[in-house]
């Protein structure tokens, strides 16, 4: 019951954060230089009366708090404005790009956590050994590398020099339609591999560090000593008792890594011509398509808020200690 109250409070908190983000976005759009109808005003056919009429139609002559209320109301109704460059609703363009980003993000999370947990666990089982030090250096380098550069280098080596992977896009534009369903799935995975690897490996570096610390701490605890004293094999002690306990703190990282994952996706999608929300945003920035950029920024932060709420709930379900609190 108390857990439920905490969850409701968590949701309310998330809603508050989303509201703050919407307000910041509105403020930025208002503060930006330039008249919203400047492009129209340049037209020889637009008389001052017509422009005045348009300002009234768009509500630009109203006081700022009225415009703000209208902005929030429109967002809630699903009207996120029109993209200047694509000449269609922002939300439609985002909806088209979102699945690609979700797929890339989930694949990168898999690389991140599978790689990071494996690395960190190997290190924690042989602390201070040469292997531990070498892997520490590897994870330090991984999380210090610029993600777009790592992407470019993977592209250079595995895409262009060795030719093992395609150099961009989601599917092969020529052969994809003629492939069998299984062939199409493999084609997608083939295209997904390099961008997911680039985006995931950078995060794996820091996940490895958390996992190493978490497992080391668990291995020093009494219940592990008891398990060993009871004569359980080292294998059982580690796999059945230590690892599950150490995974919990590491898994909570999923929510925390999401903002940097999304920021990285912007760069990786650009490198690999991956038609997701990140590349859509970059193109919108280069075309000065403000409604599109603002919409993408809102979507990204709402995704983070939602993911944090889900991660929180998952943690509550997984860890019995948080239930009675």
């Amino acid at each position, binding site marked *: 019951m108390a857990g439920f109250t905490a969850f409701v409070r968590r949701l309310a*908190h998330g809603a*508050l*954060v989303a509201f*703050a*983000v919407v307000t*910041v*976005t509105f403020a*930025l*759009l208002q*503060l*930006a*230089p330039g008249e919203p109808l400047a492009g129209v005003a340049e037209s020889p056919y637009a008389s001052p009366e017509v422009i005045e009429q348009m300002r009234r139609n768009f509500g630009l002559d109203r006081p700022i708090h009225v415009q703000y209320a209208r902005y929030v109301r429109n967002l809630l109704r699903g009207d996120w404005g029109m993209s200047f460059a694509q000449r269609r609703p922002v939300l439609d363009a985002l909806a088209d790009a979102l699945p690609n980003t979700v797929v890339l993000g989930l694949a990168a999370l898999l690389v991140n956590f599978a790689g990071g947990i494996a690395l960190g666990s190997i290190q924690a089982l042989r*602390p201070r050994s040469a292997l531990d030090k070498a892997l520490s250096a590897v994870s*330090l*380098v991984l*999380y*210090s*590398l*610029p*993600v*777009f*550069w*790592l992407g*470019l*280098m993977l*592209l*250079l080596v595995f895409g*262009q*020099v060795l030719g093992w992977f395609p150099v961009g896009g989601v599917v092969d534009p020529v052969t994809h339609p003629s492939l069998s369903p299984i062939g199409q799935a493999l084609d997608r995975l083939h295209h997904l591999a390099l961008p997911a690897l680039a985006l995931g490996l950078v995060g794996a570096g820091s996940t490895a560090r958390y996992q*190493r*610390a978490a497992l*080391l701490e668990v291995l020093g605890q009494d219940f592990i000593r008891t398990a060993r004293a009871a004569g359980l094999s080292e294998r059982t002690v580690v796999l059945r008792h230590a690892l599950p306990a150490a995974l919990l703190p590491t898994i909570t990282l999923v929510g925390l890594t*999401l*903002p*940097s994952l*999304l*920021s*990285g996706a*912007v*760069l990786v999608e*650009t*490198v690999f011509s991956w038609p997701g929300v990140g590349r859509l*945003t*970059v193109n*919108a*920035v*280069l075309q*000065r*398509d*403000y409604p599109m*950029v*603002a919409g*993408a*920024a809102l979507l*990204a*932060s709402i995704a*983070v*808020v939602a993911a*944090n709420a889900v991660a929180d709930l998952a943690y509550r379900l997984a860890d019995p200690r948080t239930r009675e609190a």
Partner: protein
Amino acid sequence: MRSGWWQHRAARRGLLLVAALTVLALAAPLLAPYDPAAQPDVVGGQLLPPSWEHPLGTDLFSRDVLSRLLYGARVSLSIAGLATLVALTVGTLVGLAAGFGSPGVDAVLMRLVDAGLAFPRMFLLLLVLALWEGASTAALIVVLGLTSWLPTSRLVRAEVLSVRQRDYVLAARALGLEPWRIVARHVLPNVAPPILVSAALGVGQIVLIEAGLSFLGVGVPPPTPSWGNMIADGQHYLTRAPWLAAAPGAALGLTVVSLSLVAEAMQDALDPRATT
């Protein structure tokens, strides 16, 4: 504490690397073999592979890559350093306000910080840079700084809350010491070490973010060399001239690695229990 700090081998290595990079950046005009903007032979001298005359080759406009790399270090490091300074100032002020302010002020400020942390920084920066088209480097520094102060403010607030109730601070208040004196004498010295750790990490993060923005074409504009826009130039010649993109990326990685080593060692020195 200071001696223990210096004995740390990784710290020494990291510090030496950071110092070396700073010297390289500062001495770029002395060290660079060529003018980074010079285009001696646009027809015959473009995309030359590394050689004795051009240790890192030349780019599309026959410019010397090593010289551009050295000048790029100045640009990238000074932007990151100054932006970190902005972030530390704002973060410290907000943290002090939250820690010393009324519970209401504290709650509002910390909710704002939460909201900021949920905003993926790249999207916020892209929105700002799209709206303020052609922002100057100074504006870029301010924007980077203003999006990087959130963790610092949390650190400072936590430290204020823990210091505030200590006997010597209560005594100082009872004696009627002015609040700013308490801050200067008792709070800041306590917060300084964790702030320095976060600053070392912060510089590295901002170096990476600036590189990303310049790579996308919204950071440092092209004629000025920055490691990010050099990688952007190089990405179109990956197979013909891989050194163009490889060299600045390696420089970026090395810079961030050395900053992380320094930060890590400082962390160990501050909290020896964390050393494993």
